[in-house]
């Protein structure tokens, strides 16, 4: 009888622990899968003309070429490997949500010396694009976003 009760208790404990581990593991895998899925749906492209990028301020134009709507305030910009802060972002019509095919204007006020540079823009879920460019002093035209 004692052997029976002990066997039952051990079996139940093993199942209890196993179910807990599987629940935890599958929850983690589900979250990771959702993040990966979101990242796969996200694509951004820096569309600046690499021959002519204004240096002061540096303005990057980033197009949402994926199929997800992104948060325009949750982008990170690196120039020559350094995180740029602060940055100003703007969408046409002053929208907050960065919808597919919309172009986000990112203005970086930190001065950049004239010459060759590279910039990387990272969206909220890790999707990114990089551009190498030459800076050029550009006159501001009557247009603008």
């Amino acid at each position: 009888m004692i052997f029976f009760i002990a066997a039952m208790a051990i079996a139940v404990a093993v199942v209890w622990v196993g179910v807990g581990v599987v629940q935890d593991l599958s929850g983690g895998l589900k979250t990771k899968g959702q993040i990966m899925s979101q990242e796969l749906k996200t694509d951004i492209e820096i569309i600046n003309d690499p021959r002519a990028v204004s240096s002061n301020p540096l303005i990057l134009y980033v197009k949402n070429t994926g199929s997800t709507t992104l948060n325009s305030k949750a982008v990170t910009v690196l120039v020559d490997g350094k995180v740029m802060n602060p940055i100003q972002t703007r969408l046409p019509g002053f929208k907050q949500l960065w919808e597919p095919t919309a172009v986000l204007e990112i203005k970086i006020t930190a001065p950049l010396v004239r010459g060759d540079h590279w910039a990387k823009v990272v969206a909220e879920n890790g999707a990114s694009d990089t551009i190498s460019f030459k800076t050029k002093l550009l006159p501001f035209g009557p247009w603008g976003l």
Partner: protein
Amino acid sequence: MGFSVSATFIILLVGSLAMGAILYNNLDPNVEDLKASVEAKEVRVASKEKTVIDIISAHRPGGMFVVRVMNNGSTVLDPDKVDVLVDGQLIPSKQVVKRVEHQHSHLWCPGEVLELRLPIPGLFIGKHSIAIVTENGASAYA
């Protein structure tokens, strides 16, 4: 002894089935979602690979800057989602008049020419750089 083994076996079996059910319930929709995302990514990459555009002319009649762009790829494009940069500056889409030449359709099909009329009166006479970017990120420079 025999009864203990059988009962333990049943408990472990039921537990294993429960674990399998938990895994299946949590992961099956996830796998389907991931599969759909991978397919969507493949479609986007293929679409960009198949998109080729070339600037065939740029001239300035009056105060307008007219750029003609040929769709030399094999994808049908949306003119409304084309972006234009002149001298590195993005021209707001609403200011650009877009028209597919000799067509009444609004689709920019392979072999067709898209005419872009840019009202930039302040643009000085001389050399300028133009960049055209399509909806999938394919671009042409002149």
